[in-house]
């Protein structure tokens, strides 16, 4: 169970997140949509403390943090309860595909190397990249890199997986394989919070779609409702534009 209350983030004088309240049930798949610059990335980055929020509370599993008073320990705990998939993959350039996946298990979770390596091989097999275990990111296609990126996040076993436009940086030919992998993650009842512009994918995978604008949640509900029968005029305008 994830519970976010009054999450606020300012850059200068503008509130990029303006008091976000959001509950996510275990295993729920939530897709966030909205125009550019409305704070979708900032929301995900604040949950991971890549951006430090200014106010609000975040509770993920048994980690509960008042962000204004968050200590280093709180921040690490929150980061360890979440797993982030980046738009630009952000694989560790000095580590092979297998080592990228092992890194969090060994360094952060303190698991034995053999166990981490076994887990990494399992995950690579799931992502269809078993034969790329010893390749460095620079030798992988964008689609392969993003599948390793998702594998790295899967292996952590985090309470919540965060995806920030995981297919936006990809050549069109690689988008399908990444979405397929995300479908497989979703099928495992992993709790997911996904920012994407892939409306068809959202319709198919989401339990709930959230429309954000101006740092607020403007409308939310099941995909059938939000995407097919939107109430808010701004949402209707947005959907016409992306269709």
């Amino acid at each position: 169970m994830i519970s976010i209350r009054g999450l606020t983030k300012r850059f200068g004088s503008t509130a990029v997140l303006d008091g976000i309240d959001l509950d996510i049930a275990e295993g729920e798949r939530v897709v966030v949509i909205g125009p550019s610059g409305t704070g979708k990335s900032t929301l995900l980055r604040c949950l991971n403390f890549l951006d430090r929020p200014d106010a609000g509370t975040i509770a993920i599993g048994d980690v509960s943090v008042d962000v204004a008073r968050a200590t280093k320990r709180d921040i690490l705990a929150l980061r360890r309860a979440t797993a982030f998939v980046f738009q630009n993959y952000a694989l560790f350039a000095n580590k092979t595909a297998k080592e990228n996946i092992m890194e969090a298990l060994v360094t952060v979770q303190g698991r034995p190397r053999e166990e981490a390596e076994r887990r990494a091989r399992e995950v690579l097999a799931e992502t269809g990249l078993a034969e790329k275990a010893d390749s460095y990111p620079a030798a992988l296609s964008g689609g392969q890199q993003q599948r390793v990126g998702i594998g790295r996040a899967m292996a952590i076993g985090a309470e919540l997986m965060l995806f920030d436009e995981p297919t936006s940086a990809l050549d069109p030919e690689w988008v399908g394989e990444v979405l397929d992998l995300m479908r497989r993650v979703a099928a495992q009842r992993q709790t997911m919070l996904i920012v994407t512009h892939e409306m068809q994918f959202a319709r198919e995978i989401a339990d709930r779609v959230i429309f954000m604008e101006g740092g607020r949640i403007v409308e939310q509900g099941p995909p059938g409702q939000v995407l097919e029968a939107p109430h808010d005029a701004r949402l209707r305008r947005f959907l016409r534009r992306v269709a």
Partner: protein
Amino acid sequence: MRALDLDYMLGLVPVILGYVPLTLFMAAVAMLCALVLASLLAVERVIRVPGLDWLVVLFISFFRGTPLLVQLFLFYYGLPQVLSFLTQINGVTAAIMGLTLHFSAYMAEAIRAAITGVDRSQWEAAQSIGMTQAQMMRRIVLPQAGRIAAPTLVNYFIDMIKGTSLAFTLGVTEMMGATQKEASGSFLYFEAFLVVAILYWIIVEVLSQGQKQLETHLNKAYAR
């Protein structure tokens, strides 16, 4: 104008070669110490520990801003007068200390620039999985910065080897000191210093070849 005494020069080569190990030893130890110190200084410059930052800035500024020879004299002849526990410091130790401090200031700047050159996404990925700052530096940022800085650091190592010649002013008989002694016995200054110059030159050339190979190797790294 007189002819070069080639026999004297050839005879001198094995004598000076005998001091090459000491020269390389001083440079290697100073290089290792400087690498560690410079990495610490560079990391501090990047993350800016409050209360420590000004000290590091001062340190780097001083050791880059004053001549190595002056620093060596300050340590070897000067410091023991104010710090009594340093009275037994020998020339080799003082030279290694001086080279370490002097070059760590330069190397810190090179490593700092390399750290800044590591893509921001690498830092964020490390943070996102819950690494501590120390883990992120040690496992992700510094290894990548090391690759970027390596060619520059080899240049500093070459400078350092040449810099060991100043140790003779602290009474250390290394390559330069040995040559100085030989020359003042034979009065064949030109021959003697020409021999030692050529020997330094050869050492540096060998290292430069190694540096080229290192660069090709580094360009291929992480790409398999």
